[in-house]
């Protein structure tokens, strides 16, 4: 045993490993509390943080997803939103068209079906209902399809859902134009439903006669994705 004089020593390594596993299990169990506490801390920090580095703190707001291989982007100057299908007049809207329509502001929590939630997001844009009116959408038609210019993502809503006063074609988030990561220049915001309903990089709204399940809905997620009442989850409602 040489210089250690035959002393075997205490199994501290095992204790450290088991202790960390316990801490990890605790973190998983107490996840929502941990992340909302961290969210408050980083929220307070990011208010005084010109570098944007505070967004590296876990629990701070949006996590960014894209179903395609990259984050698509069209600059506001070439962006067009088409309204098609069973409408009396098909529309092609520019970003300034959206700016000149009746503006609506909403402040709502944003809840992802994977669990994270961003509290009190300020959105601004045009009510989807106003866009449908401008195109003279056939209100007897039952449903809408939404297409993203990423070429892959689609979403759906019933006409009744689409006419709610908390469903926007949004172009502003927290006072800033919606950028590439958040699905700009314009995206859908379906405030009472899980985030996947809020189609990013919105390029076309099509009025159709029945609901066609969207991208995630084809993969097993609920079509009627009310926060707290779908996908087997019980989060607090967002709207």
């Amino acid at each position, binding site marked *: *045993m*040489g*210089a*250690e*004089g*035959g*002393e*075997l*020593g*205490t*199994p*501290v*390594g*095992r*204790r*450290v*490993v*088991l*202790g*960390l*596993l316990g*801490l*990890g299990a605790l*973190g*998983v*169990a*107490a*996840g*929502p509390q*941990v*992340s909302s506490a*961290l969210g408050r801390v980083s929220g307070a920090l990011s208010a005084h943080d010109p570098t*944007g580095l505070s*967004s*590296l703190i*876990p*629990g701070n707001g*949006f*996590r*960014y*997803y*894209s179903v*395609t*291989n*990259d*984050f698509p982007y069209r600059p506001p100057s070439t962006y067009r939103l088409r309204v098609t299908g069973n409408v009396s007049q098909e529309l092609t809207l520019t970003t300034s068209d959206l700016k000149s329509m009746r503006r609506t502001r909403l402040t709502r929590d944003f809840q992802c*079906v*994977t*669990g*994270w939630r961003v509290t009190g997001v300020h959105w601004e844009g045009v009510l989807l209902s106003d866009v449908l009116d401008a195109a003279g959408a056939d209100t007897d038609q039952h449903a809408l399809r939404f297409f993203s210019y990423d070429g892959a993502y689609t979403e759906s809503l019933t006409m009744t859902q689409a006419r709610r006063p908390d469903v926007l074609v949004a172009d502003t988030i927290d006072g800033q134009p919606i950028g*590439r*990561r958040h699905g700009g220049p314009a995206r859908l915001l379906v405030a009472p439903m899980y985030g996947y309903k809020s189609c990013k990089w919105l390029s076309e709204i099509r009025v159709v006669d029945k609901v066609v399940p969207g991208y995630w809905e084809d993969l*097993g*997620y609920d079509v009627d994705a009310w926060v707290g009442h779908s*996908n*087997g*989850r*019980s*989060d607090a409602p967002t709207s």
Partner: protein
Amino acid sequence: MHPPADGLPRFTVVELWVHRTTAAIVAVLFATGMTLYYGPLSVLVSRRALVETSHIVAGLLLPLPFLAGMLISPELREDVAALGRLTRVDRLWLRRRDRRRAGLPVGKFNGGQKLAAATMAGAGLVLLCTGLLLLAPVRLDLPDGVREGATITHDLFTFGVLLLLGGHVWLALRHPQARVALRTGVVDRSYAEREHAGWAAEVAAPAETPGT
């Protein structure tokens, strides 16, 4: 890189390769993980599917070099056993400010190395388990908080491990002889006699004179 002229055998070839492959996998995990995590970087790199798959594959591969090493190398098994136990000398080493000059008969690993190894192993296991939870499809209907808990725990432990790895690299930079030992398997004798006196004496004076 050449081994030191006057050296003591410290690591076997298998151990060197366990270290290298694990380090390479951790580098991939770090790069891909940061890309998935940090929005501006996600946009810059894009190619999300590739980044995501690389992260998952690297994560699943992470324990393999170590497990394979444990299977085929008695030396690695011995070293792991030694790393797991804190002796009286290790406690002194951890406690004393003059630890590197006190002439303590430190074994093959000092107390700091032992604690760091255990912390790394525990944190690695937590990252692996929470990563596996995040891979579980939503259709499994895990309780609401579990996915969120796994996410935040994975994030927090990642930052912990990054701090630890920062220290690991910093110490490696300050101890070039230790780097040589991890490249060649052989450590400079005078360095070993200074930093691991107990072990150096044991290696230099083999089995005929035990317990000196």
